[in-house]
């Protein structure tokens, strides 16, 4: 069966849906995020969500546009872990722009070509206003006086437009390489400066200062233990583990070297027994139970076991005896399992003082494999001498002292003396908040990770967006001027539309910034827009300093930006955004709009004869 809805082009339902869906992202933008309750009417369960991707995940979206949004955000989240709110908001804002265009009678082809052009402009602006992370290190060292800071900040934002006379402090990566190649600079140039992590992290915290402090601490601990090559200054996320502890106040969150896991009461006894010893360890990639089979193994169906004698022990017991025997033979004291372990195994191991840790991340297994020499196996029966690693340790980290709950003690499992792993312990008295805190932590961690990977940052707090708006509006002016001068020539209409589309696209960005400003709680929507338009006007008047926008989200009511930054330079914390994350989120938002904009029908498969009576606007084929 097939359903097909031919839509009225001027009222594109898909775009309207997209715009409506994007509404949920409003409260997720900016430094002051608001929690949302999502309640299931059927079973009465509810969830607390703070990030855009959690909200979309919790909503069961069945419409095609909803699915598309879900897939896009999921894909973005899996790679970047941040920026999904921005993605969804802009998808909504630009879908409204596209709708507006359709209502003005602009054809889909014109909208797409103009919006693509607008995106190219924005990408170009992003590329040009990047701030090198290496440049930042210098800046912090030398520019202590506020005047110089201001001057530098201005240069940073315009460095690409003045590449020729820019000083070495603000060079971006490619330029730096060029200089390295020159023999004149070779001798005099010092080693590449380490980026100032604290400064970058502060700028990227976007309101989650406490969480960012944890990230920086985790990063510095990793740096200490792993002694990385300084030329590849990276934040290896795979070495970071989170452990959430409910019931403790949030100030108790901390960073611990090693891998902290929660253990049940009886396992705690084993841990006490093994405390601070050198242990032999095995790694199981899969479940630790007799019924587990590797992926792709097809179980036999319809097998009946016949026996000519009464057997005393079951197959499970036989397997258990074999495994425990093997473990004792190999003198293993610690088992890390990526999946689950059966209750019986855990109990039997406890009696032999062998500690079983379940649900260990694969990346942690890999670290243990690297540092203890253990080889991960799928089946415990497969274990042999050379699969066993040595030098692992177990240390009681904290007794949480709860009486009834399963997780009583937090234990630190480490792979040898110099543990490569770092655990971030997140705590909260409100159980429902833990997920949000964990998400927030990963968002911050990935922001730092991407900053170091890109080796570049964007000016944050709306400055990049303002720059894009400024450039888009200039383009609009340009197309208007050419319109006047060449009234009759070819492509006039297209050119005219281009101006309209680009203008609406810029409006989408203005909408974004003003929403974030409103979210800060210091502005009303009207006031925010007023401030923005004044800034844009200012910048048109003084072309010389045109690119010097102030950080809008920090700004107090109505004060002039220039005055503001001169008067309170100490408070003016520099805010940054991630380059790759922003570019990718924008692109994906526009891709989403394009896909929906170009769609004029839904084809629904599997609609039965009976159900279709309920569906309106449906044509059956």
């Amino acid at each position, binding site marked *: *069966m*097939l*359903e*097909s809805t*031919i839509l009225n082009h001027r009222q594109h339902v898909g775009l309207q849906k997209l715009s409506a869906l994007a509404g949920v992202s409003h409260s997720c933008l900016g430094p002051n995020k608001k929690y949302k309750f999502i309640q299931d009417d059927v079973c009465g369960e509810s969830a607390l969500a703070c990030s855009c991707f959690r909200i979309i995940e919790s909503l069961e*979206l069945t*419409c*095609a*546009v909803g*699915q*598309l949004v879900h*897939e*896009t955000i999921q*894909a973005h989240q899996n790679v970047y872990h941040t920026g999904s709110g921005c993605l969804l908001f802009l998808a909504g804002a630009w879908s409204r722009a596209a709708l507006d265009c359709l209502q003005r009678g602009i*054809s*889909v*082809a*014109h909208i797409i070509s103009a919006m*693509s052009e607008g995106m190219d402009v924005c990408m170009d602006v992003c590329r040009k206003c990047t701030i090198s992370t290496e440049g930042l290190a210098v800046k912090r060292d030398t520019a202590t006086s506020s005047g110089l800071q201001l001057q530098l900040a201005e240069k940073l934002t315009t460095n690409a437009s003045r590449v020729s006379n820019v000083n070495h402090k603000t060079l971006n990566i490619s330029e730096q390489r060029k200089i390295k190649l020159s023999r004149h600079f070779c001798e005099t140039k010092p080693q590449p400066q380490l980026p100032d992590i604290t400064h970058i992290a502060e700028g990227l915290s976007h309101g989650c200062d406490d969480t960012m402090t944890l990230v920086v601490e985790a990063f510095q601990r990793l740096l200490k233990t792993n002694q990385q090559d300084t030329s590849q200054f990276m934040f290896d996320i795979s070495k970071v583990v989170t452990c959430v502890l409910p019931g403790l106040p949030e100030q108790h969150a901390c960073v611990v070297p090693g891998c902290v896991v929660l253990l049940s009461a009886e396992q705690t006894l084993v841990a006490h027994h093994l405390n601070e010893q050198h242990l032999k360890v095995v790694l199981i*990639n899969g479940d630790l139970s007799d019924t587990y*089979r*590797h*992926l*792709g*193994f*097809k179980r*036999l169906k*319809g*097998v*009946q*076991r*016949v*026996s000519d004698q009464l*057997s005393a022990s079951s197959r499970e017991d036989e397997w258990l005896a074999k495994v425990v025997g093997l473990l004792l033979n190999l003198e293993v004291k610690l088992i890390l399992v990526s999946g689950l372990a059966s209750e019986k195994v855990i109990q039997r191991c406890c009696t032999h003082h062998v500690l079983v840790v379940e649900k260990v991340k*694969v990346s942690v*297994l*890999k670290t243990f494999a690297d540092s203890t020499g253990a*080889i991960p*196996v*799928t089946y415990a029966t*497969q274990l042999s001498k050379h*699969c066993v690693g040595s030098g692992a340790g177990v240390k009681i980290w904290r007794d949480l002292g709860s009486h009834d709950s399963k997780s009583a003690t937090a234990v630190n499992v480490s792979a040898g003396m110099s543990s490569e792993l770092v655990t971030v312990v997140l705590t909260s008295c409100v159980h429902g908040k833990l997920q949000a805190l964990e998400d927030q932590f990963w968002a911050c961690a990935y922001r730092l990770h991407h900053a170091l990977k890109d080796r570049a940052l964007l000016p944050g707090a709306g400055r990049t967006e303002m720059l894009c708006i400024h450039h888009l509006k200039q383009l609009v002016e340009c197309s208007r001027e050419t319109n006047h001068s060449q009234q009759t*020539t*070819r*492509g006039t*209409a297209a050119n005219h539309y281009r101006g309209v589309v680009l203008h609406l696209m810029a409006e989408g960005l203005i909408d974004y910034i003003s929403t974030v400003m409103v979210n800060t709680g210091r502005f009303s929507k009207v006031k925010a827009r007023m401030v923005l338009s004044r800034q844009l006007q200012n910048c048109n008047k003084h072309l010389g300093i045109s690119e010097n926008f102030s950080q809008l989200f920090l700004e107090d009511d109505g004060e002039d930006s220039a005055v503001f930054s001169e008067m309170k330079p100490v408070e003016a914390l520099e805010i940054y955004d991630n380059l790759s994350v922003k570019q*990718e989120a924008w692109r994906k938002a526009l*891709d989403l709009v394009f*896909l929906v904009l*170009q*769609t*004029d*029908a839904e*084809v*629904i*498969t*599997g609609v039965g004869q009976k*159900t279709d009576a309920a569906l309106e606007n449906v044509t*059956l*084929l």
Partner: protein
Amino acid sequence: MSRLDKKSPSLCTDRPLDNTDISNKLNLLRQLLKSCFGPTARLKQVHNNIGGHVVTTSSSSVLLPVISSSQPFINLIKASILNHVSRFSDCGLFAAIFCLALIEQAKRSGLRGNVSIRVNKHLLALCSGYLQGEDCGCKVKLDFCSSHNLITLARSIVSSKPACVLTEQETLHISKLAVQAFLLTVPCSSSGTVSLGKIVTVSVEGYSVLTSVVFPGLLVDMPDGLCLTKFDYLSNPIRMVLFSTSLAGDLSDLGDGMIEVHAGVDTESQILDQLLELGKQVVDDEVKLFVCQKVVHPVLQQYLRSHGIIVVERVGITIMEPLTQLTDAQPVATLHTKIPSKAYGKVRELSMKQFGSKTMLHLQPLGESVICTLLLCHRNETMLSELKVVCQKTEHVLRLTLREPSALLGGGCTETHLAAYVRHKSKNEAPEAASVLGCSQTEYLLGVEVFCRSLEFVAKALQHDGGNSLIDLTHAHHWTLPADVLEEHMEDSLGFCGCGLVESSPSRKWTFLDTKYTEFLPLALVGDSRVQPRVLDSFTAKLSALQVATETANLALDVRYIIQDVN
């Protein structure tokens, strides 16, 4: 005990084309497919009624298989078009739209069914003859000395699917890659029968299209990051073995029914022993690369790795054929006998390639490589899957050019040109043709009009933004006039014709496609090699599509009753 139901009588539909339900559905299908046609097409979101994954597409090869109707009549047409698509990949939408237009126009003309059918057959022969003839005005000879026309052909196909969301630059990049990959599959040495290689497509999500690349040789996914063997140096050539059977250690294909097993017997460990026996032979035979289409038991994997063998499992059925071609290995389908030595294959070089989150093993053949891997990247899954479909289609079309090195002018120019030619030709030979076909001249000319209008309908279907379609009165090429241009500025805004071969000039005359024009013999453009067409269509695919569409339409016009068993 089963209950007996009274059988309901069969449903019989008389003259299905006059049935309102059927004609409504045909109309809907035509609208649906028409809106998918060409580079500015509208997309369709395909999903099932309980949510699920959404596919956004405008390709007939994706869209048609999911459309199923309660009307066997619709399914008949669909099946016939799909059959064409499976053989030629390209021009599926052309065939479908032309076929549906022919049916609709024939019905509207009021011609007797058998007259329409005969005229259609006659005109099809006329068209095929003209297209295959030397003096065809809408055909371009492909020159393999330069890649220019090949890239144009590839680009026309790539740009015809807007769900890929490509920029101009990206379209060109993908087209060049497609041609490059195609050329890599053509062997250089030409002794005896030439067999073409294969392009294996690997897709990586989340990266810019411009990072897409072609590698000679094969890239095989190594999904399991945990058990990567490190290898430094391997003696050249590297011996390898290829299994097509599952080595998971299960007894999967025992069939239905109960099996009684003695409690003391452990079938699993017995099979594992057999597997390890196999592993031992492989180690003894100094194999360094062990590839399996399906799952390899982890214990066997560990055994092989401990002997320094690289294990690749779950490569999938699609890779098997190119793998055998590249390595010269014979896939082993059983684990119960010794592996014959001639089953082993050889590889010249192995290396690891990291691409985003994917780790892949790069296999290079001993001799000349006719296997290559096209690594496609795009920002999201929806666009990537459409891009993959498009690239496979392009590969197929480029292959077809080897058999028939020609292409047809694209952008609707072939359709309008053909229509003009048919009109001219049949006007001149109306009396003879009518008598041969056993109908009156008026009937014949009406039939001609039906056929030509249907062809022009396809050309018009390229326009989705309310623009007008025009035809010039010398070469009969197709032109589009945007909706918002006034007729006074027409000359300025026309620019080039659909295929980009003819430029507008003040001396040129146009007429709207819907209007009647006095027939004329469309002129071919005489050898101005400086102007190259910008849009080309596959010759072989379009010729077949023309035939399939006409024959399907004739069949549809010929159906008198539909008898449906509804039990």
